[in-house]
Every structure is written in structure tokens, then in C-alpha cells.
């Protein structure tokens, strides 16, 4: 009797937690498909009475009444910047992770510590000098300027995760392959890389999410449609005193959907990456 009572208590607790996690997001999604009038309605309308795509049409500039915000441009900028910096960060991270996992060298621990410390610098603090230097170099408001910065943000964490995964692979496997006539290069691609693939994938996803979602640096380093990313574009909706709630919610949905899809496809790797890359390193 007592056990079933306990079980229901646990289920109830989890239900509350899940509700707190889900409701804010659901509220945004519902507002994105809502009529603007409903937002202000008294008494409040909980579930939209009429689901509409007008908000998306409006921010994409497809409706006649409202001037659109160049969301498509922002989306493409975000995509180019995130994908490029992720691919490069994963490549550099693989090299670095392999070096840390497989070689002993002087100053290894110090090098690792400095790498991690470079990641811990707050974005806004880093943005001040980078802003000054980039503006002298003409890198302000260019994709390359942002990609370079994101690359530096992503490399330390990528190295950390990938290092953890390479370490789990017994050295004897690669040695055996080399005894059988593989070069170290071949042994890496044929033995170690396939085994560490899921770790490398998870490092890639974290890098992508970081770049896709970053705001503090991008908001200072980008100016116009030439390089503005989606998170920065979100601020276009806040004028001094008014906020376009439905438009912003539609934009929020556009930002979150790619991240959502990507994460759900690879969620298994993600958890493994976080725990084992770290714990067993």
C-alpha cells in the first residue's frame, strides 16, 4: 500500500518538473501561431482559438501590412557561421584531442589548463578588445570575423570531449594495427576514428549549439544583414517601449527548430559525450 503511494508521489513530482520545463516553451510556440489580438485579450486566451501563420508571414516580409525583418538573411548567416566554425573546430579539436590523449609531452597539463581558461573568459569581456582590434582590421560585420571568434570559443571544449573519447580506446588496438603493417595515420582512420565517432559527433553538436545560440559577442561584432545572426536579430523586435510579442515568438520558433531537430537526432551521443568524455578522461 505504502509503495504504490510512494510511486504516485514520484510520478507527481516528475509531472510538476516536466510541466515547469515544458510550459514556457509551449507558451512561446502557441504565441507564435496566435492572432496578435489574442495576446492582449482579457480574460486571457490560453489555447489559440485560431492557429495562424500570419506572424511568420509578417516577419518573413510576405505580408503587405508590415515591413519584414530580414529573417532569411539572418538564418543563412547563422547557418554559414555555425557550420563553418563547427567543422573547423571539430577538425582542430580532433588533432588536439588526439595529441592530448596519445602523447606525453612537456607542459601538457599546463597547456590543457590554459586551453580551458581561454574558454572561461566571459564573452562580453572578450568582446571589448576583439571589437577594437577587429574594427581596425576591418573584420567587424563580416562572417569571417565571427567565425574566427566562435572557433576560439569552441576549440577548448571540443578538445576536452574528444580527448576523453580517444583515451577510452585502448592503445593496444592502434599498436596491433601498426604491427600488422598500418602506418599510424592509417591506424588512426581505420581504428581510432571509427571508435571515437560518437564522441566526435557530440563535440560537434555542442560546438554547433554554442555558435548557433551565442549572443554576447555577436551582438557587438555584427552590425547589418551582412553578418547578423538570428539571436542578434531577435533584438530587432524590441523597440524602446513596445515589443512585438507575436513576431518575436515566431522568430524564437525559427531559432529553436534547427537546434531541436539536430539534438533529437543525436541525443544518445550527447549524453554519452558529456558524461564519459568528462568522467573517464
Amino acid at each position, binding site marked *: 500500500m505504502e509503495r504504490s503511494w510512494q510511486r504516485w508521489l514520484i510520478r507527481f513530482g516528475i509531472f510538476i518538473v516536466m510541466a515547469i*520545463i515544458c510550459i514556457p516553451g509551449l507558451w512561446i510556440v502557441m504565441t507564435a501561431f496566435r492572432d496578435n489580438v489574442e495576446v492582449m485579450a482579457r480574460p486571457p486566451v490560453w489555447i489559440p482559438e485560431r492557429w495562424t501563420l500570419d506572424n511568420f508571414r509578417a516577419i518573413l516580409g510576405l505580408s503587405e501590412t508590415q515591413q519584414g525583418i530580414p529573417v532569411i538573411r539572418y538564418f543563412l548567416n547563422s547557418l554559414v557561421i555555425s557550420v563553418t566554425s563547427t567543422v573547423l573546430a571539430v577538425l582542430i579539436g580532433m*588533432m588536439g584531442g588526439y595529441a592530448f590523449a596519445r*602523447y606525453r609531452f612537456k607542459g601538457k597539463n599546463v597547456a590543457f589548463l590554459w586551453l580551458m*581558461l581561454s574558454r572561461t573568459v566571459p564573452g*562580453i569581456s572578450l568582446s*571589448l578588445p576583439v571589437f577594437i582590434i577587429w574594427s581596425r582590421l576591418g573584420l567587424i560585420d563580416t562572417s569571417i570575423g565571427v567565425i574566427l571568434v566562435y572557433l576560439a570559443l569552441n576549440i577548448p571544449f571540443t578538445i576536452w570531449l574528444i580527448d576523453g573519447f580517444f583515451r577510452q580506446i585502448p592503445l593496444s588496438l592502434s599498436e596491433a594495427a601498426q604491427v600488422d603493417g598500418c602506418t599510424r595515420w592509417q591506424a588512426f582512420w581505420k581504428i581510432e576514428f571509427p571508435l571515437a565517432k560518437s564522441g566526435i559527433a557530440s563535440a560537434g553538436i555542442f560546438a554547433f549549439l554554442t555558435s548557433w545560440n551565442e*549572443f554576447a559577442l555577436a551582438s*557587438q561584432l555584427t552590425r547589418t544583414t551582412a553578418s547578423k545572426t538570428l539571436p542578434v536579430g*531577435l533584438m530587432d523586435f524590441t523597440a524602446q517601449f513596445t515589443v512585438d510579442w507575436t513576431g518575436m515568438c515566431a522568430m524564437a520558433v525559427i531559432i529553436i527548430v534547427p537546434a531541436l531537430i539536430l539534438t533529437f537526432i543525436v541525443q544518445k551521443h550527447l549524453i554519452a559525450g558529456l558524461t564519459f568524455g*568528462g568522467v573517464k578522461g
Partner: protein
Amino acid sequence: MRFFRSRLSPPILLLMPAFVIITLVVAVPLLFSLYTSFTGYRLVQPASLWQWVGLRNYQRLLTDVDFWWAFGRTLVFLTVALNLELVLGLGIALLIDKLTAGQRIIRTIMMFPMMFSPILVGFQFKYIFNDNVGLVNNAIQSLGWENVTIPWLVNPVTANLAILMAEVWMSTPIFAILLLAGLMAMPRDPVEAAKVDGCNPWQVFRHITLPYLMPFVYIAMAIRSLDVARAYDTVKIMTNGGPAGRTELLWTLIARTGYQDARMGMANAMSYASILLSVYFTVYFFRKLAAARRTMGGVE
């Protein structure tokens, strides 16, 4: 193979690209910002970059009330947020671990906030706590208090609570997921043995489960400490430091001083304080993690 035969040793070659990038994008700019913090550099007057003022910026900071308020608020905010996230995350992980079915789907749902951009989380809670159209006030009014309109983000106390809530919402799931992974990987034998020996559930938790989970706690903390400053995004969009500077954190103050007031020299001096704060958190948790790993090595 030819790649490895050059004069530099392989690990140096392999790490070269990483260090070149970090040097160019982080180390050099930070040295430059260290220099700037000793000048009276203003963005609008490029010549002032060469105006050496020695320690004046730092001296001013020491007596700057706004700075110390922001600094203290940031410290309190981080301490409260990290502890709350840890305790809640642990609670949630223990609950889910007890669940007999549906663990996977719940774990998937919990990853939801992890994908959110901090700026989106800020916007989301700005909307929810809005006094006119917000979900919270709507709910209060629908529950019968029709004339109650709580100005969540205008009142200093509730504004800070709302920001804290946004932060906790965003980061607790990471703790929960990592601690759950730890719980699932935990060997059951010691727990059973302790139960047979007459330990009560609290004793089992305190002396067996918790010590086993500590490395996972430190991993979560270490990962989290790498990115403490992302609260900037949330605060920036929710209150932008207001009302009257009552939610100003170190990071929003830096942005305001550097970009809005264009006092770059001063902002760089402040940003060194924020960097030291972040470095302190990171080093602390990485040390703990390293120590925990060593003991873990003994356990396994």
C-alpha cells in the same frame, strides 16, 4: 607518415592550429585589453588609446559603488544559482532514477532547455513575467485575483527572482542529466549490502550514493563554470540591468561602460575583474574534478 617526420614533435604539430587560433583570438586581444585598462581610451576619441593613465581606472573601480554592487550581486547570483541548480538537479535525478518506466522520454524532454539560446530563455521569461500580457499574471488573474497585476520585472526584488528563475530553468537540466547518468552507472551491490546491514535510506544516500556521484557533480559544475557569464544574455534582454541598476550584473555593467558610455579603458579594467572571477570558478571546479577522478580511479 611524412607529416610526423618533420622537426617538431607530433603533439606540438597537432596542437599548433588550436594554439594559433586561441592566441590570435583570445590571448592577444586580452593582452591588448590589459594595456587598454591602463589608458583612458574612449571609443569616440581614437587618440586616447595612447593616453597612459597608470592605475587610475583601477583606483576608481575600488571606490566605485556601482561596480561593487554589481560585483557583489554577481557573486551572490552565481552562488545561489549554482547551488540551487545542483540541489534541484540532484532531486530530479533521484526522482527519475526511481521511475520504473518512461525514463528515456523524460530525459529527452529534459534536454529541451539545453538547446535554448540564453537570449531566447531571457526573452521567454520576459514574456512570461510581463505585467500586461505575461503568463504568470494571466494565471493569477484567472485564479480569481482579477485586479492583481504584479510588475515582476519592474520591482527590484521580483526582477532578480525572475532572472534567477530563468537561469535555473536553463541550467538545472544539465545537472539532472549528468547526475542521472551517474546514478544509472552506479553499481547496485554496495547499496544492497548497506541495506542488509541495516542502513536507512538516508544513510545509504549520504554514505554510498552521494560519494559515488561527486565526480559527476564536479563535471557538471566544471562544464557549467566554463559558461557562467551567459547570464549576461538573459539579463540584457529581460531587464537590461534595470530597474535603476538593481539587476545590474558585472557583465551588463561592462557592456554599458564599454559600448554605451564608450569608456573602453574603464570597461577593460572591469572586465579583468570578471575574468578573474570566471577563472576562479573554473580552476576551483576543475581541481575538484581532478581530485574526484583520482578517487574514482580507485573505486572502479
